Every structure is written in C-alpha cells, then in structure tokens.
C-alpha cells in the first residue's frame, strides 16, 4: 500500500511538473506583454487568447503575435496575452475570454478554432466587447468577426511548384493532425500537383489523429515520416505540421531532397543548415488578418462576420526567398491568376 502511494506520488508530481515544463518555454509571452504597446495612443485594449503553444511556437500563434506586435507598434494599442494549456476544459477557455472582458479589454481575439464554442457562449454576454476568431466560421454573432483563410489556394500553388520541381514524379505531404483544417492543405496541394502532372504520385501521412494534437509539435515524428517518403522515391515533401516541420526539413537535408514550409516564410526562420532545402513556403498570413482587424478597430470601425483571406486578398500565397522558385514563378503566377479569376476552383477536401 505505502509503496504504491510513494510511486504514485512521484509519478503524478512528475506529470504535473512535466506539464508545467511543457508550457514553460513559452511563458515569456506573459512577461514580454506585461506593459503592452508604447504610448497607448489608441483607446482600444486588446486581449489575445492563444491556442496551445502560445507566442513563440514558430508557427500559427507566432504569426498572430506578429500581426499584434505590428498593430501595437504602429497604432499604440495596449494589449495582453494568455495562452491555452494542453487538454483544458471548455470552461477554462470560456473563463479566459470572460476574464479579458471583465478586465475591461474591448477587443478580444481567439487564436485558433478551439475557441469556437467558448466564443459563441461568451460573446453574447458582453455585447459591448468585440470578438474575433481565427480559422472558424461556426461561432457567429453580432460582435464576432470570423477571420478565415483559403489554405487550399496557397497549397495549390506550392503543390504546382512541387510537381514542377520533382524529377521522380513522386512527392509527399506530411500533415500534423488529421483535422478538416489540415485536410484543406492536402486537398489544395494534391490539386495543384495534378494540375501540372496528372500522373504524379503523392504520398500522404498524418502524424497524429485528434484529439491527440502532439503532431503539431513533434519534430522527431515529422522527420521519420518524411524520411520514409524520401526513401520511397519522393523528392519534394510539403509539411503542414507546425513545429514538427523542422524534422521534415532535416529529413530533406539528409536525403538531398526538397521541402516546402508552411504558415510563414520558413526560409527566414529555419536553421541555416537546412535553409537550402526549402523550396518555398505556403504563406498563411494570420498576421495580416490580425493587423487589419485591429487597424479597423482602432479607427472605430470593427469588422464583424466572415472575412475570407484568399489569394485575391493576399491572405495566402507562396514565398520566393532563397530563389529556388524563380525559374517557375511565371507558371505559378499564371495559376494564381486563374484561381483569382475563378477559372480554377480548388477543392477543400481531399
């Protein structure tokens, strides 16, 4: 009895300590944001509720943070941040939004679709507060703005780039977690590759299945998955796997293959040792969406309802840094124009 108790005590303490460590590297968000921005010349106060990982995740959350920083610097907006912990309850998310509202924040941004039910519940309680949610159209209300992206359009272009650059006629896709959102990336990528080469072979792997979201933060697993594809004959691999993408770049570097980044221009942020394998990155400009929403809000005209950031609005796109797509840029631009004009309709499900 007592031995079991001791073992249990040590184990459960370890679990709690580990969970604390898990979030530890990102708690700088809490510190750095303390004062908010500059001279606070604007009278809106912004609360940002991040998804798991928060500021510093080198991916989705960071992109939102970049837009926030830009708005804060240029407009002097005061802001405060808070991030989700792994496996928290619906009540925790609701409470985070309520705490912001109760503390007098006038504009609250939920970063990520996980905030959908909680925002739908909390927003009606605070009609004078403006809410925005990224990647979700299900939470609707008079004071909710839905900022969504046409990930499939950007993915179409990098898919075309992959097919144009592939010599083996075989390419790969590594998804972080098999959610409808990431399937949009896959669908666009496949459509783009097939638009270039109808017979192209596309390997698809997802690292984890929901509700296990570790696939967005597991570089080792990303590397294993991508190595398998390169060994199998693929020569370009696109990842939509957040923090796991570093492993995909590593695998590409070792296999002398190419990789495609996601969300931000990963050529700029990746380890210099693997920089030369990054063909391009599918840009999902969450920062633009956040910045534009805040700019409009600071001017006293807060948008509500759905705003779609697609190719036409430069909400998604592809990066050219590194110069590896220079020779095919004309073809990519042609595809882009066709999508913008509606000549090509990109599917959202694979």
């Amino acid at each position: 009895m007592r031995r079991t108790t001791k073992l249990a005590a040590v184990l459960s303490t370890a679990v709690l300590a580990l969970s604390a460590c898990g979030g530890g590297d990102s708690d700088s968000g809490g510190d750095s944001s303390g004062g908010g921005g500059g001279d606070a010349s604007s009278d809106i106060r912004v609360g940002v509720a991040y998804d798991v990982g928060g500021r510093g995740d080198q991916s989705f959350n960071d992109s939102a943070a970049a837009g926030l920083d830009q708005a804060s610097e240029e407009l002097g907006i005061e802001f405060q941040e808070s991030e989700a912990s792994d496996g928290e309850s619906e009540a925790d998310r609701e409470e985070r939004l309520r705490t912001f509202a109760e503390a007098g924040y006038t504009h609250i941004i939920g970063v990520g679709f996980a905030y959908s039910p909680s925002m739908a519940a909390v927003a009606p309680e605070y009609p004078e507060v403006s809410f925005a949610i990224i990647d979700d159209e299900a939470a609707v209300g008079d004071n909710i703005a839905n900022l969504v992206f046409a990930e499939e359009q950007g993915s179409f272009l990098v898919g075309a780039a992959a097919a144009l650059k592939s010599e083996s006629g075989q390419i790969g896709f590594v998804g972080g977690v098999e959610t409808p959102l990431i399937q949009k990336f896959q669908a666009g990528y496949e459509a783009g590759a097939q638009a270039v080469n109808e017979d192209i072979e596309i390997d698809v792997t997802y690292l984890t299945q929901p509700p296990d979201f570790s696939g967005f933060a597991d570089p080792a697993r990303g590397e294993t998955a991508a190595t398998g594809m390169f060994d199998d004959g693929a020569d370009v691999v696109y990842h939509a796997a957040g923090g796991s993408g570093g492993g995909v770049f590593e695998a590409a570097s070792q296999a002398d293959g190419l990789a495609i980044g996601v969300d931000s221009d990963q050529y700029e942020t990746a380890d210099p040792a693997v920089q030369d394998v990054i063909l391009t990155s599918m840009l999902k400009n969450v920062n633009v969406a956040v910045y534009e929403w805040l700019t409009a809000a600071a001017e006293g005209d807060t948008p509500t309802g759905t705003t779609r950031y697609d190719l036409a609005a430069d909400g998604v796109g592809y990066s050219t840094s590194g110069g590896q797509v220079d020779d095919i840029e004309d073809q990519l631009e042609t595809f882009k124009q066709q999508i913008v004009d509606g000549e090509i309709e990109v599917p959202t499900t694979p």
Partner: protein
Amino acid sequence: MTSLDPRLVRLLLGIAAPVLALGAAFAITSLVLVVAGDPVGEVWSTILSPPETRNVVNIVNAATVLYLSGVAVAIGFRMNLFNIGVDGQYRVAAFAAAAVAGEAWLPGVLNMVLAVLVAMLAGAIWAGIAGLLRATRGVSEVISTIMLNFIATSVVAFLLRQVAVREEGSNIVSTRPIPEGSRLPGIPFGDLPNLEIYGFVVVAALVGLGYWFVLNKTRFGFDLRATGRSAPAATASGISVKRMTVATMLLSGAIAGLVGMPLLLGSSYAYGSTFQSGLGFAGIAIALLGRNHPVGIALGALLFAFLDEQSNPLQILVGVSPDIVAITQGVVVLTVVISYEVVRRFGSRLEQRRVAAALESERSAKADAKQEASA
C-alpha cells in the same frame, strides 16, 4: 505521561498533516516565484482572492469531474493496485457514451441513462483488460494501464473519424450532439444566465457515499482492503486474490467511465477534438491528497479545482504564467505524502511511549499489589 485524551491527540495529528503540507507547498511555491523574479504577493493575492459567483460554479463543476476521477483511482489504491489508466478509461467511455447517446435510439431520460451505463461498461471493459492481464499473466497493471492509455487515444481517434459530424464552417470534429431531451439539466446558481452547476454533482456525491459504504460496510470491501494490506494473508483466509484483482479493476474502470459524464451531459453534449483530457492523471494526485477517503478526495478535488480556476487570470492580470499553479499542485501532492509520513511516525512514537508508560504503571501497580499481598 501527559493526561491528553488519545482521541484528541489523533485529531490534532490528523489536522497537523494537511496544515503542514499546505504550509510547505505555499513556502516552496513562493520560493519558485522569487527565483523566477515574479511578484510573489500579487500572485498569491490573485490566487487567494475570493472567487466570484461564476468562478464558484466553475470550481464546483471542475471539482465534480476531478472527484470522480479521484474515487476511481482510490478504489485501486485501497487494493494496492495503481490504476494509471483512468485517463484512457474515461476517454474511451466518454466517446462510447457520446456515440451511443448521439444516435438517440431511446427517448429522453432513458437515452441519458443508457449513456451513463454505456460509459460505465466501456470504462470497466477497458480497465478489465489490465485486471485480466494482471490476474492471469501477472502483468503489472502500472505498465498495462499506461499502454492502454496510448491505445485508447488511437482507438478513439480512429473511431471518432468513422462517426464524426462536422458543423458548417467549424474545424472541430465531434460526435453527433446528444438531443436536448437527453441532456442533464444543471442546478441554477446565482443570478447570471447560463450559470449552472452540473446536475451530475448529485451522482458524484452518491458515488462517494457508495464508495464509503462498499469499502467499509460490506464483505466485498473488507476482502478488497484485506487483499490490499497483504495478499498472502488474504489468500490464507480464503479470498481469491485473482478474482479480487479483476473485480477491483472493473469497479475502478466503471467509476472512471463516469468521469467524462458531467462534461458530456452537462456542457459539451458531444465528444470531439476539444474534449478535456488529462483528467485521469489529476485523479491520481487527488486520490493521494485525499488519502483515499471519500471526504478527503472531495477536499482535494475542490483544492485542485480552486487552484486551476484562480490561475486563469494570472497571466492576464499579473502577467505570470499559470504554469506556476501546476507547480503548486505537484508540490502539494509531495508535501502531503511526506507530511503524513512524518506525522504518522511522530504519532506512532507517541503511541509507543503512551503504551510503554501504561504498561510500566500497570506492572508497577501489580508489583505493588504483590508486595502488599506477600507482606
């Protein structure tokens, strides 16, 4: 010796342990805050500020869920079985219940009862695998339940994709929502709308009562505790340890199956990618904290829920990461185990001295009597 009533001593010792533990946890957490350069005073005043009405509701609701998890773990502990698998068991159970109730084969309340029964059955089966492995093959339940947690994650993820429905424009995958008639109404609290305590809190209280009754007042409970104290002694007195192992795991798993029910029937109405996870691990800490006692577990659950809830505004109002509360919780578990051990040793030394003194005085009294008799 002192003339202190032994019962009073025991009561004082009983209070001393948790007070000592909380004091030590408070001190250690403060030390961590100082080292990290965070404002100690502000952090504590935020955490210890009286919760508002809506926070009280959240605390009671979270404690309800944690309590069930704590009881599920405690059942195993009493039998010297370490069921780390409550986490997997409640997720399998919640998914099964959500999938079945979402189909609405039965009308209204019947559907709800069915969901609860399915959850208990699914939890029991998942835990029973570990029980069977232990009984028939001697596989340590610590290992098998951890492994079953991982398997649970994959199995649920796979099955969820088979039955998932998706709301238009949403990126959340979940089971079909339970029809309105089969949802468990909450207990209104305060004057705010949408502010209700989970109706399941009643069931949780009944589970606590049942736990106390079965363990302390029935033959089965006696067998369970006896086996936990000493398996060879239990065998010698005619208890089948194997059967007890399987029965205990089934019972623990059935209660684990209830863990997700307050959430499913009271707030989310579906099992999806945002369903709360990690409740089973919190249950281990809470069972330890509560010393496997039904009331102790309730206090432990309330303490954890209180800390969790009060940590939410930390980042927003004070600018300190809420992870500090996870450290506090971990420290509380350790200090509780240590301080109980310290107090137990102190208590047994007191007891020894008291008995020795009593024997001594008895002997001298006898000797006196003998002397008198012989004189």
